[in-house]
């Protein structure tokens, strides 16, 4: 008996994998049913439904990039401290002295790529009419995931705390100041006052809510850090789960049921 066979015959191995290697038809079916990670997939699938020229693979790559972001992001969190004192210097150290500083590059390029692959995924879904019944609502969830992907990227943009970061966020968040009714320079905000006192000021409007301050400062850094590392990823994970589950329940990525 070879070592390999001995290991595969051991109680430990069997307790993990529950069945022999997927080399024959029966075990190829069983592996899809018993493996937690593989059970996202159906056991069998239309040949045409997995042709790359049809699917473009962009949804899958987006998910993979999300995983890459999670892994590299957690590693970066070990180094990075979101305070005015340390933020910039920690990124500088990642660039210049930290051994695995390349994690920041991988994290940033994956983030840009993820925005692009989400767009391309939606492009494919639209062009194959895959949002048509019964998948209407999954498209809506997809649009929400698009928004959250952009927000993830936007909140992460601030964290290096360099000129590029704070001014991009300043320009982006200045828009919130003009929110109708809820921004202090937005139409209708003047109407919201009680006894001559404005309810919407630069210390209480939508932009203040976003920044936690009247300008992009330490409160913003903390706020964006929590949004970027905890709040948005949690929501995204939940929506991804729903998105995938519905793909399965709706009988695959496209075509009528």
């Amino acid at each position, binding site marked *: 008996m070879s070592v390999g066979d001995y290991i595969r015959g051991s109680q430990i191995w069997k307790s993990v994998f529950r069945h022999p290697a997927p080399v024959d038809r029966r075990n190829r079916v069983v592996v899809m049913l018993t493996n937690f990670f593989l059970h996202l997939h159906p*056991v069998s699938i239309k040949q045409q439904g997995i042709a790359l020229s049809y699917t473009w693979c962009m949804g899958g790559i987006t998910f993979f990039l999300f995983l890459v972001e999670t892994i590299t992001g957690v590693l970066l969190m070990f180094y990075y401290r979101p305070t005015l004192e340390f933020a910039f210097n920690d990124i500088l150290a990642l660039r210049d002295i930290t051994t695995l500083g390349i994690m920041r590059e*991988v994290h940033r390029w994956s983030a840009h790529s993820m925005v692009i692959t989400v767009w391309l995924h939606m492009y494919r879904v639209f*062009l194959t009419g895959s949002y048509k019944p019964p998948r209407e*609502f999954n498209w809506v969830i997809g649009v929400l995931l698009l928004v959250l992907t952009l927000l993830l990227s936007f909140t992460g943009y601030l964290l290096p705390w360099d000129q590029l970061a704070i001014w*991009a966020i300043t320009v982006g968040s200045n828009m*919130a100041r003009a929110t109708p009714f809820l*921004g202090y320079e*937005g139409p209708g905000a003047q109407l919201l006052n009680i006894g001559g006192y404005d309810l919407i000021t630069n210390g209480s409007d939508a932009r203040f809510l976003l920044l936690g301050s009247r300008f992009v400062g330490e409160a913003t850094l903390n706020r964006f850090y929590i949004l970027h590392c905890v709040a948005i990823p949690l929501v995204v994970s939940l929506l991804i789960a729903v998105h995938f589950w519905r793909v399965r329940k709706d009988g695959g990525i496209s*075509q009528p049921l």
Partner: protein
Amino acid sequence: MIHLTHNPDLTSSVIYGLGWVYLLMFLMNAVWVKRSYAIDGNCQLSLGGILGKGQQIPYATFWAVYAGILLMVAITHLTGWKNPQQFSLLMPEILKEPINRASNPVAFFVGSTVIYVLMIVLRRWWTTPTAGWILLNLSLLFLALSVTDYDFRQIVGKPDNVPIVAMLYIVGFFTWLYFKKSVDNDDRRAAGRPLFEQENSEKVLTWPDLVYTELVCMVLVTAVLIAWGIVLQAPLEEPASAAKTPNPSKAPWYFLGLQEMLVYFDPWMAGVVLPSVILVGLMAVPYIDFNKMGNGYYTFNERKFAVSTFLFGFLPLWVAMIVLGTFLRGPNWNFFSPYEFWDVHKLELLNNINLSELFWIKGLGQPLPAVPAGASFAQQAPIILMREWLGLAAVVFYLVALPNIMAATVFKPYFVRMGFLRYMVLANLMLMMMSLPIKMVLRWAVNLKYIVAIPEWFFNI
């Protein structure tokens, strides 16, 4: 032509890098020669009688000549990179000058819209592999030559802008692929043959067929990301300083289409209302598209309206606006041509005029109805409404009356099939989308700034 910069167009590392690009292009085209020789056949060549009645030569010959030139160009770069001053393979001024002079926001938007129309009209022509290959080569040559320009390189070579260049190629490729596959399917439908997607309907096991594809994908993506991370360092500028405002100040690249809209709309429209409309509009898509055709296969003929609308929104209004906002907008958000130095002192005359000024001052020869200083809201309102009545009427007409007129005329078949509510959502989304190009055209044609200008209430449209 005055050179505002003293920076050299070429450096050794640029020439050396381009050498590898041309070598790669040579290899790509060498493979193409082989393909062309195998399937493209021959053509009759007489060279104006030099070859007598003409000779049969394979089309592949032309590709071979082209590939040969690329190889020589590559060798020139890879051997001559040490002397950038004497290197002469540059983007010729003869091309730069007209490109610079022809570039402006009008030409850019009109150009991208024309390309969008041609893309649909000529879909049968440009989706052949040879046409696609020629377009790819032309764009690569344009890019490679342009990189020899210092100012072009400063903008396109920014680390955060590199993904946008990649995105352009990827979006271009997938658009090409879509049209190719839909032309094929539309032909099949016309000939009564089964669609491509229906041909292979037998089921295969997910393990191994799909699982292995996914594994290969993951390995490739990881490899690309690591290689990208090694070659290109993530940007890190000076430490943040609230006192030093960079010029231009730009949002992250994926929002630059929205920032570009600020040229035509106030922040509450460009930054809040229109983005919300885009998102709500996207979510509404499945509920307003009542066409049952085209679910699960590529087609253009069966979904002309839906696909054309989506492509118009995505390509000229989103992707092209990002390109404009990223590469062609410099200090003070002025427009800069691709090979132009981003001069902070560039002046652009802004003599934009509001519709109310056009009406009262130019039309009636009267001053604008003035709002007395310190007036209460109730005192302000009638004067402001009178001052802006024409613009307000135009907006109400556009968003309320026009959908109804369209329902009775061009969109009648849609209105009948969709019902009132669905139709109104569709019509308003369409009108919201078209408001950007309309505002652009009004700006360019009559320098119109605001249709409704009520700065007192932060309400400018």
